[in-house]
């Protein structure tokens, strides 16, 4: 007689309340990313500007002759601008396959046969990319503020520029939401993650190029809103209360961002389904 039955047994344990499936998807997604050495290397690389700025803040705080490098609110705006490059690479690396890989492996019918809604699935995937992007933008920017306080030994700078905390948070969130939504929508359009990455790069570079051409033709930056990068930059300037870099009202940039997010939501609503029907 066996001392342990390895046959199928009924489950008598507890169950987690519904509505938390997105956290399971998010955790698994983040674990999957951090298992890849190349991605960890990219993430570490994205913190290089933070190290450079840290040295700058240290020098400005400890050597009077380096006062030229003393931080201003624009320092933090510039820092977030610099991080845009890493935002692009992290988005392509971690975001391109988020839905595309599931579609390739027919995993959507597995997901959606579980007690979870399509919105939970999308939000779980969205959260993976958004959190990674915040780790590249919001987290190092906030750390810079802390580092500045530590090196200067005073909270005077922060006290004078307290708006920096919500400004960094708001701009980082807008960027994370816009980029994550757009990438997720693109990812749902294909079964091939590499193709999605190329599509995303195309979208960014094409709209940037179009904006550049329009600037040359019209000798004006009033049509800079055609580029999503420009929209984000314009919003960033408005949020940080510095002079706007393009000759367009910032609400136009905000509308463009909202349109992109809404369009992405519409695409996801149509593409994320348990069954694909071609009629």
């Amino acid at each position: 007689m066996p001392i342990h039955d390895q046959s199928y047994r009924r489950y008598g344990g507890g169950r987690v309340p519904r509505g938390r499936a997105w956290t399971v998807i998010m955790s698994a997604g983040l674990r999957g990313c951090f298992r890849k050495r190349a991605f960890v290397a990219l993430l570490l690389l994205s913190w290089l500007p933070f190290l450079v700025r840290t040295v700058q803040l240290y020098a400005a705080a400890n050597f009077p002759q380096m006062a030229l490098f003393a931080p201003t609110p624009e320092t933090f705006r510039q820092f977030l601008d610099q991080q845009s490059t890493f935002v692009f690479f992290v988005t392509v690396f971690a975001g391109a396959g988020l839905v595309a890989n599931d579609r390739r492996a027919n995993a959507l019918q597995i997901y959606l046969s579980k007690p979870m809604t399509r919105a939970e699935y999308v939000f779980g995937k969205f959260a993976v990319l958004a959190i990674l992007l915040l780790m590249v933008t919001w987290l190092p920017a906030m750390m810079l503020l802390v580092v500045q306080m530590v090196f200067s030994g005073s909270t005077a700078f922060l006290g004078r520029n307290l708006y920096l905390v919500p400004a960094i948070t708001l701009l980082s969130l807008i960027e994370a939401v816009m980029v994550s939504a757009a990438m997720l929508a693109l990812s749902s359009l294909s079964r091939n993650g590499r193709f999605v990455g190329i599509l995303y790069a195309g979208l960014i570079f094409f709209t940037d190029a179009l904006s550049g051409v329009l600037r040359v033709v019209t000798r004006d930056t009033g049509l800079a809103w055609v580029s999503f990068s420009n929209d984000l930059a314009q919003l960033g300037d408005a949020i940080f209360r510095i002079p706007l870099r393009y000759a367009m009202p910032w609400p136009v940039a905000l509308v463009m961002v909202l349109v992109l997010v809404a369009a992405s939501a519409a695409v996801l609503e149509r593409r994320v389904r348990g069954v694909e029907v071609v009629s």
Partner: protein
Amino acid sequence: MTEAATAPIVTLEGVSVAYGRNAVLRDVTASFPAGAVGLLGPNGAGKSTMIKSLLGFIAPERGRMRVLGLDVAEQPLEIRARIGYVPESDAHIPGMNAVSFVAYCGELSGLPRADAVQRSHEVLFYVGLGEARYRNVETYSTGMKQRLKLAQALVHDPDLLLLDEPTNGMDPKGRDEMLALVHDLGHNKGVNLILSSHLLPDVEFACDHVVVLSGGVVATAGPIDALKQPRGQVFELRVKTPPGELESFVSRLRAGGLDCYATEDDVMRVFVPGEGGARELFAAAAAARVQVRHLRPSMPTLEDVFAQAVGED
């Protein structure tokens, strides 16, 4: 037997589903009793569509469906928490080994992480993937992927399993083992299941009841044993006819109320209703001047039931 035990686990009332202009289910009314039930039908009969409708993937144009006493349109999440689904196509979550994949599915179904991991190991052993459970699922063979799909459907201990062609692509040995698992679940482990298949032997082996779909409608339904009860006699018949006249002989048989269809071995199976038996067959052959070369009484099989139900030639 209590009322709960005899109540159907799935009911469909006047359900119609269409993809665009193509009607797939037409006003289907059916009930699936507790236990192991086969959903049988030729390719394109609407079996997978019915299962996907029960899961809430496809909203029917008309009709009402209840699963485990819950309305599919109103409580899809409550239903999905209590069912396991084995899809027809290859399906997995990329980049995971079997333990992670099945545990992940358990967590998505509401199991705490520790329980999900423990159950994952248990069900993987149960389905026969114990030794391969740390391998990346993308390296699995087709048969192993079928077992894996069963494991992910079982991990949260569902009350109802929906299996869509679970033996697709499996070799004979793997198929037998999969059917043994399905039979065990339905008969020894107290899991209700609906086995969708176009393979009659699979359904006959694993199930007690059957619902036969054909052309989007229910052709017949009931306990397999009852359906196989002879309501007449079945004969294996081989005849010699002048070239090209076999069709007219078959037509003559059908006109006389004798249903017949060809098997793979050049032998017809003929249903003779009532008590006429072989005498009617000989009379029909004599009238058509056809030589009877082989005539043997036979036992009705599910194949006969299926052929009669869907009107197969």
